[in-house]
C-alpha cells in the first residue's frame, strides 16, 4: 500500500509504546456491534496505480471532450485556452498541498497571491474591494443577496429574468429555508433585456436587484438605468458576471453603478471540469467590508517591519463567529483563485482586452454563418461571445441530433428553462478563441442538415 509508510515492524514497536497489544484495542470505545471485523464486503481490494489509471482512463474515454469536437457551449461555463504555465505552477507542492493560511509566517505564498487576486478582481469588476473567492458564481450570488439584506436591513430580492436559471434556483432554494422573499421575473425570448420590468419590480421593501451582464441569453442590460432605480429605493444593485472575459470589452459593472459584483471565474485558469471546482468572485463597495462574506487577505507588517499578508476580519467567519457568522463559506476556492490570478497576471489588462476581442470576433463569424441557414435567426445583435439563436423547432432535439454527429452545438433554452415552453426554440451558442473557422463550418453544415432533416 504505497501511501502508507508504516512497516509491520514500525507498527509493533509503536503498539508497544502505546501499551496496546493490538490496534483493535485502540478502537475499544466503538460498540462491539458496530465494529467491522474485516474489509467491507462487496468492495474491491487495493489496486496498483496502473489499474486505477486503466479504470479511470476508460471512464474518461466514454466522454466526448470539448477538444475532440466542434464545441459551442457556454451558459455559465466557458472554454478558454489556459497557458501551460498556469497548470504547472498550481501543481507546485507548496501551493497545492498547503492548508488555509492560518499560520501566515509560513503561508506568505498563498497570502500574497490572494492579495494580488483581490486586487485583480476588484480592478476587473470596477469595485473598491474583492474577497479571496467563494465556491462558485451561484453561491456568490446568493451570498450577495444575503449581504444586501444585512446592509439594507430589508429582505426582498428582485431577480432579472436574464439571470442564469441555475443561479435563480440556488437563490430560491436557499431563500425557502431562510424565508427571504425572492421576486423572479420571467424570461422572454426578446431582443431586449428586461430592464424595464426589473425597474418596475423595485419598491421600498427591495433590498437588492440582481442582474446578469451579459445575461443568460447573451444580451446586455443597461446597468446605469437599473442602478439609478435601485439606489432611489435604497436597494443595492448586484451584478452577476458569468463570463469575466466579457469585461475585456464591456464597461466594468462597478463603473456603472453596481454596488456588488459577483461572478464565476472559471473562464480564466480553471477550465470546464464538468462544472467544478469553479471559482466564485465577489467584489463590492469598501463600506460593506465588515458585512462581506468569505475570506479576506489584508496587508500588514511583521515584527521586523517587512511587508506581509494575513487573513483578516475573520470575526465575520463562521469558524469564529458560530451562530452569528456572515456566511456559510469556510473552505473556499483558493487553488482556483491561484489559477485565475496566474492566468490574469499573464494576460494583464491588455491581454484581457485582446482575448475579449478575438472572442467577439469568432462569435461574429459564428453568427454570420449560422444565420445564413434557413429558419435560423438571431435574437439580439448586441452580444459579446454568446448569442441566442431562434430555431424553427425545439432546440433540445436539435442539440441531441448534433451530438449524434459529434458536434457539441450549444445549450438549448429548453434544458435551462424546461417549464417555459415559449423559450424552447432558443439555442444558446458561444464561440471563444478556441473555436476555429473549420469548427464553425462543421457546425453550420451539421445544423443545416439537422434542420433540413425536419423538413424532409
Amino acid at each position, binding site marked *: 500500500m504505497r501511501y502508507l509508510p508504516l512497516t509491520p515492524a514500525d*507498527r509493533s514497536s509503536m503498539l508497544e*509504546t502505546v501499551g496496546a497489544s493490538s*490496534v483493535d484495542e*485502540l*478502537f*475499544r470505545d466503538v460498540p462491539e456491534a458496530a465494529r467491522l471485523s474485516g*474489509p467491507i464486503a*462487496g*468492495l474491491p481490494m487495493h*489496486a496498483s496505480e496502473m*489499474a486505477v489509471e486503466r479504470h*479511470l482512463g476508460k*471512464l474518461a474515454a*466514454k*466522454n*466526448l*471532450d470539448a*477538444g475532440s469536437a466542434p*464545441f459551442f*457551449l457556454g451558459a455559465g*461555463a466557458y*472554454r478558454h485556452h489556459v497557458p501551460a504555465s498556469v497548470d504547472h505552477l498550481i501543481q507546485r507542492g*507548496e501551493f497545492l*498541498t498547503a*492548508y*488555509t*493560511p492560518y499560520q501566515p*509566517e*509560513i503561508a506568505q505564498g498563498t497570502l500574497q*497571491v490572494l492579495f494580488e487576486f483581490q486586487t485583480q478582481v*476588484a480592478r476587473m469588476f470596477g469595485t473598491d474591494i*474583492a474577497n479571496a473567492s467563494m*465556491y462558485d458564481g451561484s453561491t456568490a450570488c446568493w451570498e450577495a443577496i444575503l449581504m444586501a439584506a444585512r446592509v439594507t436591513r430589508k429582505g426582498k430580492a428582485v431577480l432579472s429574468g436574464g439571470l442564469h436559471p*441555475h443561479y435563480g*434556483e440556488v437563490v430560491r*432554494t436557499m431563500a425557502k429555508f*431562510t424565508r427571504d422573499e425572492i421576486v423572479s421575473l420571467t424570461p422572454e425570448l426578446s431582443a431586449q433585456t428586461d430592464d424595464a420590468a426589473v425597474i418596475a419590480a423595485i419598491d421600498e421593501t427591495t433590498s437588492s436587484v440582481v442582474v446578469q451582464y451579459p445575461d443568460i441569453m447573451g444580451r446586455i442590460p443597461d446597468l446605469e438605468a437599473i442602478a439609478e432605480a435601485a439606489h432611489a429605493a435604497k436597494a443595492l444593485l448586484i451584478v452577476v458576471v458569468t463570463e469575466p472575459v466579457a469585461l475585456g*470589452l*464591456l464597461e466594468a459593472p462597478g463603473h456603472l453603478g453596481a454596488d456588488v459584483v459577483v461572478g464565476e471565474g472559471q473562464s480564466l485558469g480553471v477550465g470546464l471540469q*464538468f462544472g467544478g471546482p469553479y471559482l466564485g468572485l465577489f467584489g463590492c463597495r469598501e463600506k460593506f*467590508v465588515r458585512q462581506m462574506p468569505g475570506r479576506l487577505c489584508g496587508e*500588514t507588517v*511583521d*515584527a521586523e517591519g517587512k511587508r506581509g499578508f*494575513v487573513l483578516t476580519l475573520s470575526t465575520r467567519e463562521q*469558524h469564529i463567529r*458560530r*451562530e452569528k457568522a456572515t456566511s456559510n463559506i*469556510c*473552505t*473556499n476556492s483558493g*487553488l482556483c483563485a*491561484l489559477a485565475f490570478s496566474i492566468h490574469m497576471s499573464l*494576460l*494583464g489588462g491588455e491581454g484581457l482586452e*485582446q482575448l475579449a476581442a478575438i472572442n467577439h470576433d469568432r462569435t*461574429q463569424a459564428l453568427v454570420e454563418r449560422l444565420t445564413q441557414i434557413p429558419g435560423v435567426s438571431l435574437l439580439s*445583435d*448586441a452580444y459579446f461571445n454568446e448569442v441566442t439563436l431562434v430555431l424553427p423547432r425545439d432546440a433540445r432535439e436539435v442539440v441531441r441530433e448534433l*451530438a449524434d454527429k459529434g458536434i457539441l452545438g450549444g445549450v438549448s433554452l429548453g434544458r435551462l428553462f424546461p417549464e417555459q415552453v415559449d423559450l424552447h426554440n432558443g439555442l444558446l451558442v458561444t464561440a471563444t478563441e478556441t473555436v476555429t473557422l473549420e469548427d464553425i463550418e462543421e457546425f453550420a453544415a451539421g445544423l443545416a442538415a439537422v434542420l433540413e432533416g425536419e423538413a424532409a
Partner: protein
Amino acid sequence: LEEALIFELGCEGQTGVDIEPASKAVSPALAKFRRKAAPALPGLSEPEAVRHYTRLSRQNYGIDLGPFPLGSCTMKHNPRLNEKMARLPGFADVHPLQPQKTVEGALEVIEQLADWLMKLTGMASVAMSPKAGAHGELCGLLCIRAALDARGESREIVLVPESAHGTNPATAAFAGFKVQAIPATPEGRVDLEALKEKLGPDVAGVMITNPNTCGLFEPDLKEIADAVHEVGGYVYCDGANFNAIVGRVRPGDLGVDAMHINLHKTFSTPHGGGGPGAGPVVLSEALAPYAPLPFVTRGEDGEVRLVEEENRGEGHERAFGRMVAFHGQMGMFTRALAYILSHGADGLKQVSEDAVLNANYILRSLEDVLEAPFGKSGPCMHEALFSDAGLPEGISTLDIAKGLIDEGFHPMTVYFPLVVKGAMLIEPTETESKQGLDRFIASMRNLAQRAREQDESLHTAPHFAPRRRLDETRAARKPVLVWKGDEAA
C-alpha cells in the same frame, strides 16, 4: 525574501500571452457598452510570471515538505496519480451542460464514488453537489428541514455539543434553526443525560461530531440516535473526523441520518491553500428523498442517469431544490475515486488503523511533558489533544505553535476545541512515517523543555520562517485589501 507584487513587477499595456488578432471590428451594437479603458492590470511575460509564482510558492509550507499535524483537518499525502487522473481531457475538458450521452463516463465517476461513500458509511443515498464541509452541513440540515416540512412539522431546535466545530452552530443558524448547546462530560464526551433532557417535540435534530473534537469516539452515539429518533428528530453527524473510522465503522450502523464527508480530508483531495474542497452528504432512508438536484442515480437497468429540474418527476421529485449551479466538485470526485480505488476496502481499513495508531503514539510519547486532558479516558482516535495547563506562566500554546515552525513543522491546531483551555490538537494522519513522528516528538519535547526553562525566545518565534510574527491587529483595524500603489502617485 520579499517578493514584489505583480503590480510592481509588470507594467500595464503589456501581456504575456500571444493572442491571434481579431479580424473584425467590434459590432456597432456593442459600442455603447464598451469599456473606456482596459482594467489597470499588468501583464507579465512568461519568464517573469513563472519566477514570481515559483518564488512565492517557496514562502509556503505544504504537505509535500513535511507533516501538517492540524487536528480536525486531516492533512494527509496527496497522491499525484489523482492529479493526473483529474486532468484527463475526458474529465477536465467536458462541459456540465453537454448532452448526457456525451458525458456518461463523468456521470459514472459520480455514481461510482457515491456508491463507495454509501457502502463505507452504510447509508442509503448521497447528495454529491455540496462544495465543501460547511456546505455539506447545510445540505444535511436542509434535508432535515425538508423532511420535517413533508411531515408538516416546523421544529425549530437543533442541539449542538459545546465541543462542536464552529461551522455546526453557524450552519444550523443559517438554515433557520435555533441552536441549543449540550455540555460535555469531564471525560470529553457528550453528556448523554443532559442531551436526553433537552429532547422533545421541538427538536429537529442533533449535530454530533464523531469521533469528537477531543479526539475521542462517542460510545453513546447509537443510544443518542435512538433517543432522538424516538422524539421524531434526526441525527446529523459531522464527518470531518471520518478518517479515524473509515473502513472500520459505518456511521449508518450508529443511527446517523446525515453526514457530510470532506473529500479533501478523508479522501485526500489537495487543500490548495484553502480549497476547493467537496462535501458530499450521505443520507439515511428517511432523508434520501430530499437530496438536492442535480442528482445522479443508477437505474434498474444499470444505466447511470442524471436527474435535473427538467426530469425530476422521473424519480427524484421530492428534492429540496438546488445548492450549486452545476454538478458539484467533479475534479475532486475524480481524485477521491482514484484514492479510494487505490486503497480498496482493505487499504481504507489500514488507513484508519494507522491514523489511530500514529495519534496514540504521539499521545503516549508526549503525555509526560504536556498535559493531556483526556489521556486517562483511554485511547484517542486519530488526533491527540493536549493543553497548556502544564506549561509555566507566560508560555502560551501560541508560543509552542510558533516554536514548532522553527523546528521545521507546521503547527498543530491551537485553541480548539474550546472546551479545553489552550488546546493543542495534533492529528498526524496515516501518511506519516514512524521516523517522521519521532522527529516531531523530539521537537515537541524540545519545545516543552524550552518552555520549562522559560526560554524567552519562544515568545518571538518563529525566527527562521519567511516572516516573523505578523501584526494581525493592524491588518484588521484599517484593512488594506487591494493594492493601491499606483493611486498614491
